[in-house]
């Protein structure tokens, strides 16, 4: 089975935009070990493309959650709490990361200043 076929198989394992456990199990039984690894990797990639991870220093209010859902329509949003962010928000959309928080700014400042000295 080629890589492309396994990728299609992973895309077909969804029902109404959600991963179908029965389909996944039936497919997994038919694959070799190596193919199964590839299939899992494709499922993981597919999941990460359908999911947005939002990191905040505190849980957002309902109005904020609604606004974010409208902003990322069609994707599943998972909220994480990380108090070390201090202020702001961090949005992880597959491989694109939007760092709009105070912690990141301070880290960048530190790296910038220290890189100028031996």
């Amino acid at each position, binding site marked *: 089975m080629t890589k492309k076929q396994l990728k299609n198989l992973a895309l077909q394992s969804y029902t109404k935009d959600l991963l179908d456990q029965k389909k996944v199990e039936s497919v997994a039984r038919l694959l070799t070990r190596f193919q199964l690894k590839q299939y899992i990797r494709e499922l993981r990639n597919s999941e990460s493309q359908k999911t947005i991870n939002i990191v905040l220093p505190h849980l957002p209010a309902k109005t904020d959650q609604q606004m974010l859902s409208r902003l990322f329509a069609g994707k599943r949003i998972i909220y994480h709490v990380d108090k070390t962010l201090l202020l702001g928000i961090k949005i992880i959309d597959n*491989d*694109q*990361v939007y*760092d709009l928080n105070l912690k*990141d700014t301070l880290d*960048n*400042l530190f790296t*910038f*200043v220290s890189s100028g000295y*031996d």
Partner: protein
Amino acid sequence: MIDSQKIIEQLENRLMSFGVDKKTQNMGVVEKITDGVVIASGLSKCFMGEIVAFGNGNYGTVLNLDEDTVSIILLGKEGKLKEGDGIKRTGKLLSIDVADTILGRVIDPLGSPLDARPKIKGARAMPLERIAAGVVEREPVNTPLKTGLKAIDAIIPIGRGQRELIIGDRGLGKTAIAIDTIINQRVSNDVICVYVAIGQKQSTIAQIIDRLKEEQALPYTVVVVASSSDPASLQYLAPYAGCAIAEYFMEKGKDALVIYDDLTKHAWAYRQLSLVLRRPAGREAYPGDIFYLHSRLLERAVKLNKKHKGGSITALPIIETQANDISAYIPTNVISITDGQIYLEPDLFYSGIRPAVNVGRSVSRVGGAAQTSAIKSVSGKLRLELAQYRELAVFAQFGSELDATTMALLERGKRTTEILKQLQYQPLKESLQILSIWSVTNGFLDDIPVESTQRFEKEYHEFVSSRNPKLLETLETGEKPSEPTVTQMEKITREFKKIFSF
């Protein structure tokens, strides 16, 4: 005692330039690490050749863009890199920081100092990969680059802006020719030298650096080191780093000399990277673009016209052959790229002819355009006599009876061959080279025993330097010797011969 006020001022100045927008980042994740190559997922917006930063502080450069993954070569050791580690884009292509203070330094291909001195400050970032100057920006090679070696300056002259390959088996003196060339630039002091050590032993590199220091050649030289213990990625980048440094000086209107020692190991390093990147293997397992690897490097050796400040880069690539085979894949590739080759032969080396240059099979495609009139006037006869000697030497081996003319040619040839020998680390000024070659081609050594030729030459040089230094100054101007100059040369040579004992 460092003034705290000064520290605060420095920090404030530094912070004024802070403002890099790092709000959005395209991240990747390490999937696999094999032999210095990282396969990563994500990084969907990175471009070819981009530098990426790993979580452990290491850097890499993107060399393959596949549908779902990206292949990155590590610029350094693997360290504590593991599967799942994050990778960030930097948005920059590979470059090296160069400033005037880089002269005399020993650095790695990324610009990090290896000589226990501070980093290069106030530098300009020179890209490692760059398109060579176009046809319109160039002018023909017309200025000699003197190596200080008689066999090369007289018969296979090198010009500034030329690519001249030094090719031969191991241990025949390829690096020695390169080092002598660097040492000889001490005389004119207008050529910046860059020595790129690729895949060599660190002990050998240390010896070379020590020798350059001893001969006071290091102040105008930069040494770029990617030794055999460095990753293949650094060995692959080293020649491009050396060329980028030379381009910095060339753009200021200066002449630069780059020595790539050696491109065989460079090809091996690239082969290793390509095989790990799963690129299709071609002849001798080299990748399909092995020719382009060297052609794009050597094309950057150029002589710019006056409109572009008139600087130049001369390249002396070195190729190591196996069992004298210059028809192998990499040697033939590089021979077809360069403007000539200096071919070193083991038979000559072991028979005591050093530098072991086979003048019959060596060539400089620039030729007389890279010679001064002075040396051109004596080298024509030298070339002819050597060619005749080579043809006749075969007959002499059979022990057959030869006529007087042939015997005379053979004897002259032996003395010519002897005069072209030269000790290592003793490059000669052009005036002394002219004297040596002129004296042998005009028969002044015909009555000197062959075994005394070298002693004759040494004492002859000392004699002329002390008795008539103005003659040397006249020869040093590069003008073809006039009748009065030739008369002076004849007179002083006869004077010396009277006192020379053998």
